[in-house]
């Protein structure tokens, strides 16, 4: 039992490192994880948001938020510690 890692312990280890967040819906974010709480509300530095263009859903708009942000945990679906975002995963797929 004791050697089992709890999910939030994994996230705790990611503090200070890049993290990739997939929201419910289409939006994704990346940033440096500064902290989180029991509800998985997240504090991020240097956050970048990737969301579908409202006019053409096949186009992804990249937006640098240039801010420290608090992300509401309500809409968080998946966390990828160390992930640097969708561009990274596309690069990985092509190799």
């Amino acid at each position: 039992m004791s050697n089992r890692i709890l999910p939030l312990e994994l996230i705790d280890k990611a503090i200070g490192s890049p993290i990739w967040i997939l929201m419910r819906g289409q939006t994704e974010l990346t940033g440096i994880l500064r902290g989180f709480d029991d509800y998985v509300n997240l504090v991020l530095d240097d956050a970048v948001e990737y969301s579908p263009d409202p006019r053409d859903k096949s186009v992804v708009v990249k937006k640098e938020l240039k801010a420290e942000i608090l992300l509401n945990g309500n809409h968080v679906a998946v966390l990828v510690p160390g992930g640097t975002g969708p561009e990274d995963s596309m690069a990985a797929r092509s190799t």
Partner: protein
Amino acid sequence: MSSAATDDATKAPSKDGNSAPEQNKRSPSDFLKAVLGRPVNVRLSSGTDYRGVLACLDGYMNIAMEQTEEYVDGQLTSKYGDCFIRGNNGKQCLSERNFSINL
């Protein structure tokens, strides 16, 4: 559970305040303490942004703001002297204009 259960994710963590935040760690409640009274950008999941001075907020993340400007798709659409934003509107993030609250 009460009908407020759906708002749980926006509530303050109960564990905060029992120890000084470790170096480089910044919990959501630390963040909110730091941005109180400062210019913030609140983004709803609809994509609408509200920029103004954060007056106060509560455990449901209801927010009161002053000198608020509303932006839809980056375009200024209206201004409010004071405004109240209800807590469970799928807010995505909150940032100070350098802090964002994605609610």
